[in-house]
């Protein structure tokens, strides 16, 4: 991963003290979890029942049947084996990533074999739909997390992602309805995100307000503002002010027919394609262009950047404002790409999950996107299991993304290193 390891190199390297390296700890955990999964899920799974995984958007079509109990036990043991390998090798690097991903996948499959075999409504899990729902749930998180990357790489903490998403959704619904145009809504949403970002930029950079506090208060401000106008204006006149068309779904011919991943990546609204382009552009921009180098320099060591003639404050203003536009568009997805109307507190904490994805993804665009997809997956999984009639109460299924976030932030990430100057106002001289 391309990170700057110039100034505080000691804290950047993963602590490898003694026998218990991070890989070994992860290995031991997965070994234990795998064995527990094999025993517990194996016992709970129905012995005669099959778990059917279809590769399409529906429960019919090409599919794979796995017997419930042997499947749960087998995948649980596979997870344990992956954990054991990690424990034996105990090295960081590519192996850690591969084996961790495999162990996680096996653990999830073991869990799914159990759940699908005992489903009250159905025994079939449509993987294509799961993938599509994953991407859909992850989209606002991706926009939010990329907004966070843009902001924080230049040294401004962005806790106001939630407020930017919310204002974007709100402006998208209001102006999309007034002008009866989805494009007008999209532009308004971008300006809505920009508005909160402008407040963040001026107060953080010019008036040196504590940035975490500022973000929390701006979220509150956005919540109050949008809630107020919603209750006063939009709720009583839904047809006039809160009823917008949504963007059409575009499919890429051919590619969208790929099993499982086709519909997820090549069949969606404009927001899907914008997100894909955004991630690629920001990744290359950040690590391979002059703008990216300057942004990272300002975020790591503004004094040094200033010395070589980079305009620190200007760079920060520009990045925070771009981030606002990105987050505003992400908010617009919730309205213009999905339901077509706005509700008070529609984002419901998505901005904070995006923030967690940003940290989990270690302030890199690709990492943050993968983290967002992970949280999207847990959300989609909870919905799917609910619909096949899982025995787990749906409140607990809905806890999945949040618990996964905590586990991710506490267990897998460990002590992450933010850009060195993140949250520190820059005073010239």
């Amino acid at each position, binding site marked *: 991963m391309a990170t700057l390891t110039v100034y505080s190199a000691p804290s950047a390297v993963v602590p490898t003290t003694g026998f218990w390296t991070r890989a070994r700890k992860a290995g031991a955990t997965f070994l234990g979890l795998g064995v527990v999964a094999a025993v517990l899920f194996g016992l709970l799974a129905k012995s005669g029942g099959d778990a059917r995984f279809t590769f399409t958007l529906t429960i019919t079509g090409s599919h794979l049947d796995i017997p419930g109990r042997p499947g749960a036990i087998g995948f649980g043991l596979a997870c344990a084996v992956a954990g054991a390998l990690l424990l034996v090798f105990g090295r960081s690097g590519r192996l850690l990533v591969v084996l961790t991903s495999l162990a996680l996948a096996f653990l999830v499959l073991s869990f799914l074999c159990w759940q699908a075999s005992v489903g009250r409504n159905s025994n079939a899990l449509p993987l294509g739909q799961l993938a599509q729902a994953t991407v859909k749930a992850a989209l606002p998180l991706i926009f939010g997390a990329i907004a966070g990357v843009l902001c924080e790489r230049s040294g401004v*903490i962005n*806790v106001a992602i939630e407020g930017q998403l919310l204002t974007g959704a709100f402006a998208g619904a209001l102006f999309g309805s007034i002008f009866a145009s989805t494009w007008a809504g999209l532009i308004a949403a971008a300006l809505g995100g920009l508005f909160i970002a402008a*407040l963040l930029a001026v*107060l953080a950079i010019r*008036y*040196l*307000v*504590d*940035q*975490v*506090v*500022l973000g*929390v*208060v*701006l979220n*509150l*401000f956005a*919540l*109050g*503002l949008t*809630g*107020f*106008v*919603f*209750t*006063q*204006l939009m709720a009583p006149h839904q047809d006039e002010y809160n009823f917008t068309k949504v963007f059409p779904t575009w499919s890429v011919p051919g590619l969208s027919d790929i099993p499982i991943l086709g519909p997820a990546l090549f069949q969606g609204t404009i927001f899907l394609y914008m997100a894909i382009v955004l991630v690629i552009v920001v990744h290359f921009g950040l690590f391979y262009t002059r703008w990216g180098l300057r942004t990272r320099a300002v975020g790591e060591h503004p*004094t040094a950047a200033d*010395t070589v003639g980079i305009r620190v404050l200007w760079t920060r203003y520009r990045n925070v404002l771009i981030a606002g536009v990105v987050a505003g568009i992400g908010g617009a997805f919730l309205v213009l790409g999905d339901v077509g109307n706005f509700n*008070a507190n529609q984002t419901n*904490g998505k901005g*904070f999950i995006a*923030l*967690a994805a940003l*940290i989990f993804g270690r302030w890199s665009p690709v990492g943050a996107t993968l983290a967002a997809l992970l949280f999207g997956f847990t959300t989609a999984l909870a919905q799917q299991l609910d619909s096949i009639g899982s025995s787990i*109460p749906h*409140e*607990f299924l*809905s*806890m999945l993304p*949040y*618990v996964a*976030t*905590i586990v991710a*932030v*506490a*267990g897998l*990430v*460990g*002590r*992450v290193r*933010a850009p060195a100057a*993140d*949250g*520190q106002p820059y005073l*010239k*001289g």
Partner: protein
Amino acid sequence: MTEPAGGTSPEKSAGDEAELAREQKATAPDLVPANDPEVATEAAAPATDHGDGPRHAAEPASPGFGRMVLDNIYSANTVTVTILAFLLSLVVGAVLIVLSNSDLAGEYGYFFSAPGTVLGDSWTAISEAYANLFKGAVFDPATISGAIDGTNSWSQAFAPISETLTYTAPLIFTGLAVALAFRGGLFNIGAQGQAIMGAICGAVVGFAVHLPYGLHLIAALLGALAGGALWAAIVGLLKARAGAHEVIVTIMLNNVALLFLGWLINQKGVHDPARSDAISKNVLKTAQLPTIPGVDHSVVRVHLGIVVGVLVAAGVAWLLTRSTIGFELRAVGANPAAARTAGMSVGRTYVLVMLLSGALGGLGGAMMVLGTTASSLTGQVTANIGFDGITVALLGRGKPWGVVASALLFGALHAGGNRMQSYSHIAIDLVIVVQAVIVIFIAAPALVKAIFRLRAARTSGTPTSLAKGW
């Protein structure tokens, strides 16, 4: 921060000079408006003090008392900034009231043909809304005169202030929870989740256990305290052990707590069998916070919680300034590295801070379910007290008595907002905007100073940072 290479140092010194010149220029205009009040006091002084005036003039070195007061008002000290921030937030609220009023929006279409009418109507809308805000929060003159005439009871005259105090009580606890964590260097956004867990534990003890009066209430409060404390301890442990950032963990735990509450109230033994909706059994009378005896508690709802809140605030103030624990907590909050060097266990202190903070948050939840606001668990039982606690703590600048004062202000805004919503049809969300704007201005004293052209306060240094970055 190293000195830049030699070639740039002249530029730097030139920059310093420019800085100096700018400072002088900046202070100069401030002196001008300050002169007027001085003249005014000097002119007024002889009239009242009978000949003290000339002596003042003879001793310019020691400014008079009036001058000192005015100086303090003109300088950007804490009180001035707070009051101005409040006024500014009301201005922002007024703008929103006008903008969201569809009748007024129509009139602004032909603003230039009749500006007087439009502005007059706007003023009516704003003043009526804020009058209702005041009447709902402090007192309504009509009920006072009514009580004197005997047309309504005295309890109705005291109802608004009692509403304010009822809303204040939980905010004191959640505000203290956030403030205490601030002082220990943690940003506890999880007061909401801790309040939910506190409300759950308090309510369960309240309806599942049978105890005599007094003892039962104490047991329920202790249950709430333990529930909040243990829930928050997870955050402290994860922070201390795994380095997980408390902002993320607390936000996630808020959601988990809310979902858990939603699940719990539908379970057998908790759900009220007489009801079909999602609501728990009622807390027994023995576990409820007592109201003022002999007064109709449906009108004057204020309960013992506000007294407990003030006492707990005093306790927290003592803890922070007079105890060893408080010293360690502040030391870790100010500089963890230095605290570690001094032999304090930073991780242990984090856990302790979160335990104490969660206990306070849990008690805040208890105020909602053991008081007069509700007597059973519902999905919305703790309303928004945890998130409001953050703004209360920020407005109170992390100091216990500051928290009490700002909780009172926010309680008043909430109570008044209710009346404003039902009488003037202004959504109570306006109160959230007002609260947010107050805190934004409080957090940016430089902005308030710039708007009102105040001079820098003599004691004001760099603004103290409450929360730490990542």
